[in-house]
């Protein structure tokens, strides 16, 4: 099992005592594609980031087990964590505009990631960067390698991010809303690309998103989070068979092209879901 989480809770201090952002979440992940879906504040990003121990300083994390490839992440030293972060588990964030270094060329950033995790010379890293850009289906990799982030479109930027994360050949890719800043056409391209790369390299993928239909299209399993808990886990093809009223509500409140509705159903949040 690549990822094994048992009873993970994450709390933040507040004026009225600790407030729980993630409550007793358990999940495990092998070489598969898992989607984590939830709305703002449901704890989906915190859950994924806890695997890399990339949480704000004031967060209190407790778990019976929080393991990545057999390594206890909670007890690990910074040195051990460096062997995970970026090397064995890559993280792709929402907007490449903010996650790429604006004053380094795309190629230099990928080469830097390559050299940080592998023994390689400058020339070898540069060649690897161009090869990686070709792998993320950039038509003119040599040109893009020499381009600065502001010269790239959102979709191109996200491809560069993916190439950078693939450089150390990780076992797990965590993608936190990787396409929500992109156009629908580009969104589909990027997700298809990620799906393809993940399957071909036998990697695991954790795809975090607020878009339930999108995620179920590209993942094997989907975990739905609400108020810090996983309320339901579904096989991706079984979305129509969702039982939890929150999952049903998420699906029903989406306007669709296929059915015309005068009013959209609005979700009635049941306090019992919090229990």
């Amino acid at each position, binding site marked *: 099992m690549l990822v094994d989480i048992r009873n993970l809770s994450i709390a933040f201090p507040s004026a009225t005592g600790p407030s729980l952002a993630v409550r007793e979440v358990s999940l495990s992940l092998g070489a598969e594609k898992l989607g984590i879906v939830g709305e703002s504040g449901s704890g989906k990003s915190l859950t994924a980031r806890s695997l890399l121990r990339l949480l704000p300083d004031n967060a209190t994390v407790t778990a019976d087990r929080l393991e990545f490839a057999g390594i206890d992440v909670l007890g690990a030293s910074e040195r051990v964590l460096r062997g995970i972060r970026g090397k064995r588990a890559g993280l792709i964030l929402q907007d490449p505009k903010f996650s790429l270094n604006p004053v380094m060329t795309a190629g230099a950033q990928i080469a830097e990631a390559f050299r940080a995790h592998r023994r390689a010379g400058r020339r070898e890293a540069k060649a690897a960067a161009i090869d990686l850009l070709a792998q993320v289906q950039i038509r003119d990799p040599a040109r893009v390698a020499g381009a600065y982030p502001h010269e790239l479109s959102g979709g191109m930027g996200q491809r560069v991010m993916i190439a950078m994360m693939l450089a150390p050949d990780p076992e797990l890719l965590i993608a936190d809303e990787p396409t929500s800043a992109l156009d629908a*056409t580009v969104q589909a391209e990027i997700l298809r690309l990620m799906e393809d790369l993940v399957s071909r390299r036998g990697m695991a993928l954790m795809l975090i998103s607020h878009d339930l239909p999108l995620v179920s299209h590209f993942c094997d399993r989907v975990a739905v989070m609400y108020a810090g808990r996983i309320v339901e886990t579904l096989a991706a093809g079984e979305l129509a068979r969702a039982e939890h009223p929150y999952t049903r509500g998420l699906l029903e409140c989406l*306007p669709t*092209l296929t059915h015309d509705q005068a009013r959209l159903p609005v979700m009635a949040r049941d306090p019992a879901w919090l229990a």
Partner: protein
Amino acid sequence: MIAVQDLRVRFGAMEAVKGVSFAVPHGGAFGIVGESGSGKSTVLRALAGLNADWTGRMSVAGQALGPKRSRAFFRRVQMVFQDPYGSLHPRQTVDRALGEPLIVHGIGDADRRILRALAEVALPAASRFRYPHQLSGGQRQRVAIARALMAEPEVLLLDEPTSALDVSVQAEVLNLLADLQAARGLTYVMVSHNLPVVAHLCPMVGVMQGGLMVETLSAADLRAGRTAHPHTTALRALSTELEEA
């Protein structure tokens, strides 16, 4: 109510909008869809008077629009932006945000009007003296809509009004916009990249690509797949593909 003919907008050497025409009847809703950079927001901003460098003809309520707009225009036409975090002043209370259009347009009776506006967008009266950071994203967008309604406009220009919101909140805001339109007889022009959202609110939809409006069709035709332009067909396929999954 709104007529746009051969609208062209340029930014320096780049022509962002290359001759766009459409018309919206009184009380109607027109949606503009397209990808980033297709010029859809530029059309809306030119219509709102936020971009003076345009050519062509535009009129609202039968009055031709020039590069400079009258005070009456700004009372008649209001705009709601995508990001309620960016469009509300972080250090002004909801009360101040809603009161400002009244001061600008010399409308009295502020107290009663603010309370009524809050009720109309289903915000609790207690939120009147809150700051934007004390509200959720959906509540903030409701404040932005309430502010746009303060001057009692006839036209609302909506620029991606729900794309920064969670889907459950999006449903609430779309219902609110539909209710307000029915109650006040408002005319909407909405820009969005989300086809289902546009088709839900707007009976007529214009599809933009590369600064041109490549197709104008009814929402019913869009739903049924009676599309003429390949770009419309492609955009529709992307939305329906996910729905069928």
